[in-house]
């Protein structure tokens, strides 16, 4: 009887089973990290990452060949211009030698101040998030290169995010603009602390600021070091605007990140930080994920 009913409504039965399956998947993941689901996800991503890597490689080769072709066309003109520039640069080299010596002296001073250098892993961005809902990137370095979950990712501009999952030869990093990302933050001028969280995947909002906090447009925002994932002092961005909503308990501020996440090509993963070895334990704290 039941079997006949199922067979008669086969299409709806298949759809209902799939919907129930995905609903249960989502429910389990919201409650806790399920190793089997995590494993499935990694297997799927590992199987696709060689194709991502190959595409990125092919695109970079095609781009460089094209650029070289364009360069060749302009070679003659550029050659003449370069000869003139060479004469000018010879003069400048003398000046730069003096600067280099000064630079060496300052670097020695900085090394003394920093005591232990931070180890970093350079990585190339090989993929972006496949949906418009989350903001993550795939990088070409994984656990084989020493990348671990919750390691901090930076770019020349400042903080980029953290490692969400590390596969053997690639990793997924959650950008600061991801709606599920959060980092303890500090307004550099007034030392007011809050939490910087991703907003609609485009920008970030500075949350939990006291109503009468001293925060103004243009203030620089850094990581506060609270929460145990992001070390203190990494630039996050600049305050774009501040709002005092009526009846709200906290100030609202938007922070424009330093790094342009849409144009990220290479990033650095902070592999270890002096005195913060325990910060990489994924079971610690809630910073990094709302």
């Amino acid at each position, binding site marked *: 009887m039941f079997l006949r009913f199922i067979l008669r409504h086969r299409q709806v039965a298949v759809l209902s089973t799939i919907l129930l399956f995905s609903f249960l998947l989502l429910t389990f993941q919201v409650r806790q990290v399920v190793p089997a689901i995590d494993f499935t996800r990694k297997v799927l991503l590992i199987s*696709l990452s060689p194709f991502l890597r190959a*595409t990125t490689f092919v695109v970079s080769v095609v781009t460089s060949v094209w650029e070289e072709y364009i360069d060749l066309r302009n070679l003659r003109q550029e050659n003449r211009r370069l000869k003139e520039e060479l004469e000018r640069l010879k003069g400048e080299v003398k000046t730069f030698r003096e600067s280099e010596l000064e630079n060496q002296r300052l670097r020695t001073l900085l090394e003394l101040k920093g005591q232990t250098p931070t180890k970093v892993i350079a990585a190339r961005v090989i993929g972006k998030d496949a*949906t418009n809902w989350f903001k993550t990137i795939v990088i070409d370095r994984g656990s084989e290169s020493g990348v671990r979950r919750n390691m901090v990712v930076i770019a020349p501009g400042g903080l980029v995010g953290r490692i969400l999952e590390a596969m053997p030869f690639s990793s997924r990093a959650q950008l600061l603009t991801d709606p599920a990302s959060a980092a303890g933050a500090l307004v550099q001028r007034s030392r007011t602390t809050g939490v910087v969280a991703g907003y609609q995947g485009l920008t970030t909002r500075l949350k939990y600021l006291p109503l009468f906090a001293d925060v103004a447009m243009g203030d620089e925002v850094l990581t506060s070091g609270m929460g145990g994932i992001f070390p203190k002092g990494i630039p996050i961005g600049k305050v774009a605007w501040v709002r005092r909503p009526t009846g709200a308990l906290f100030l609202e501020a938007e922070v424009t990140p330093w790094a342009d996440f849409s144009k990220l090509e290479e990033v650095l993963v902070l592999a270890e930080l002096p005195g913060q070895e325990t910060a990489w334990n994924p079971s610690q704290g809630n910073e990094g994920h709302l």
Partner: protein
Amino acid sequence: MTPFVLFLGVAVFQSTLLYQLSIGGVKPDLFLLLLFFLSLSLEADLASFLGLLFGLSQDALSGGPLGLKVFSLSLMGFLTAHFSEKLYTTAILPRFMLLALIAVLSGTTTLLLLRFFLDLDPLLPTFLRIVLPEALLTTVVGLLVLVFLKMRGALEVKP
């Protein structure tokens, strides 16, 4: 063989080069588009299963929870296959309208699931910022594919 190659192409393109064509940080959903065109000629249960496979892949290539796109894509596969049975014409307009509806429904389903499970960004601004532009872009790309298929005489009425 061809659907698998198409799927692989979509998976790679969606997560590598497509962001360069994005407008305001929003890109078209090629997984949904491929599912739509394949489901037009499939039975509803097979289309749902295809949605499951596509959804799993898209979830794996995203930072979101596994199952999010499985839910919306299997539902959209089912609806596309179901409604395509009612299309007795090879004209572009009905298919275009069906695609637009499916694109908006897919985004709305994902948004509601995200709101229910993760309580992320507010509903209306996110609908206007992500769901509508994504649906619009997906529909525009889909229209180009429809015109191409029509010119090649590849649009068929489901038997």
